[in-house]
């Protein structure tokens, strides 16, 4: 199911991108960008006032069972962030993160 996992930085470059089974990362990268565009669209449609509020309900971009996946991803991401040696903006090179993503992708595929 999860064929590609990508973490995109604020500046629209990928901090981390992994795809299986085939390594056609570029195609997935485009897809990721288009999905981000969808998110941007939704944000701009909502209006300024709501931006400050916690997570906007942007609609189900993803089926709910993947919320677990997202949670795991997010937890691993925060672990990476907690590392004081990690500079924000660097590519994510954490082995723990890698292994978690691998396990996730393998598990659901």
């Amino acid at each position: 199911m999860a064929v590609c996992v990508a973490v995109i930085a604020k500046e629209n470059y990928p901090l981390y991108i992994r795809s299986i089974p085939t390594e056609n990362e570029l195609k997935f990268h485009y897809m990721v960008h288009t999905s981000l565009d969808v998110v941007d669209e939704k944000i701009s449609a909502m209006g300024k006032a709501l931006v400050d509020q916690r997570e906007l309900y942007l609609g189900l971009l993803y089926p709910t069972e993947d919320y677990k996946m997202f949670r795991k991803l997010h937890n691993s991401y925060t672990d990476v962030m907690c590392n004081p040696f990690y500079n924000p903006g660097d590519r994510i090179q954490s082995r723990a993160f890698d292994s978690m993503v691998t396990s996730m992708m393998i598990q659901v595929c």
Partner: protein
Amino acid sequence: MGFSAWFFLVCFQITELCGAKRVGYFGPTQFYIALKLIAAAQSGLPVRIESIKCELPLPRFMMSKTDAEIRFGNPAELHGTKVQIPYLITEKNTFKRMDDEDKQQETQSPTMSPLASPPSSPPHYQRVPLSHGYSKLRSSTEQMHPAPYEARQPLVQPEGPSSGAPGAKPPRHQASLIRSFSVEREPHDNNSNYLDEPWRITEEQREYYVNQFRSLQPDPSSFISGSVAKNFFTKSKLSIPELSYIWELSDADCDGALTLPEFCAAFHLIVARKNGYPLPEGLPPTLQPEYLQAAFPKPKRECSLFDSYSESMPANQQPRELNRMEKLSIKDMADFPVLAQDVTSDDNQEQNKTRLEQNKTRLALKSTADEALPKDMSEDPATSKDSNSLKARPRSRSYSSTSIEEAMKRGEDPPTPPPRPQKTHSRASSLDLNKVFQPSVPATKSGLLPPPPALPPRPCPSQISHHNVNSERSAQPKPPIQLPNYGDFRLQKQSEQASEAEIHPQLNRAPSQAADNSPTKKDIPYSQPPSKPIRRKFRPENPATENQEPSSTVGGPASAATGKPHAAVQKQSSKQKKAIQTAIRKNKEANAVLARLNSELQQQLKEVHQERIALENQLEQLRPVTVL
């Protein structure tokens, strides 16, 4: 001669069987097999693979000079080979122990020739040729491929009762000799599993780590924050990705901070890495926080011990440890073989002097450290199980988004709070600055006037009226003679020189506000209530009144001021310069603030425009509906 031929044959067979011939060198598996075969041969079993499967006593290797000389008349060779035997034997003991951990068999380290007590000759006779053959084997194989051996770090302290050995008495006797000898000569980690070797923290290392922890964080039961640890570990000159990985391994609870056991683990990993060990895939069980906490005394107790002898010890310990660390830094990425050879040279000091010289200090440290090891072998099974279960611990974090935010914030956790964000809605402040700076502008202009004969008076009563803090200053004297501007200037000036207890709110408010905007905080930022500037924002449109205001208030303090000792007139010029400089600075800051304000306001204007356009569009869309 037939006998020597026999054992050569045996050795040959062993070499073949264990696969060394095939592989071309003695790797660990080959070595184990070879040793097992030797044991089998010594016990009289045929040299076959199957014989390994039996429970065998450890192969015994003994060399006695006299016997060997008698038997083989080749002392030179013996000398050459026997020194390798101690190393080998300890290695073998290690491996053997690995293989048969449950078997508490007699372990024997070889005796050096002076210590060899001549046992009854038949058993000795039996052993010596094998050992000699073995040593020959060893020497040949060592020439073939020394590296894998030395990488093994054979560190074991022979122990265990002698049991089931043929000729039990002499071996026991020797064993006791050996044990006493080995205690001094093989001071290594007291390990059951040699694979753990690099990951065990010795007592001395532990003390050093704790000391370092205390230097960073006085309370040993508390944390070291991430940034502090980062700065500290960066000094080790390892690359950032490696440090990042070490952090990942050691921060077990992923909280962005290191407790004492986590810190020790991280430190130890760094030390190991600097010594050339590759970083493990996962945190070794001996470095898990629970293990470390259990294996070593509680930090509190350690503290008391520490305090008692920290004064005496640091002189000895720290220079040594520092020396070691320096060595680590100097010899970046020391090779496996180098380090391993250090260990071997410990045994073969007289033989490997060159290598010894290389790492003598390090060895000395390690040897003394390893002597005083905690005997925590009994805890290994228990704690290893705990640590294994720990690996599978569930994530100890709640899943609400807010807590994740907190976790992220905690991860940032800078030691100094970030500079206060600029007040975006700083309309008020900007206008206040206008208000604030305008008095200072005439002040600077008036600064060019000749200095007054007396000290400038106290700050404006406008500030006094605003801030009660200045009430004490009203007691300061002020010469009644001056022009309004001039007095104002002197007020400003004096406020700047206002030292210890005196606060000049007006001028300092500006810097405190400007300091929000610019990082330079030359004046002490006082916690002046911002309400006062805000209050004044409604009166900015009358610059004239502003000017009049301070000037009108000047007369007030002038009259209100009491006598102050007329201090140095000489200071006037320097004070003037200072005043000018500070005024210039403040003007610049004000300019920056205003410019930024301007841009922000422009942005807001744009946004409001857009909103207006959107609203108008909506209105137009709705209009036809309502019309109908």
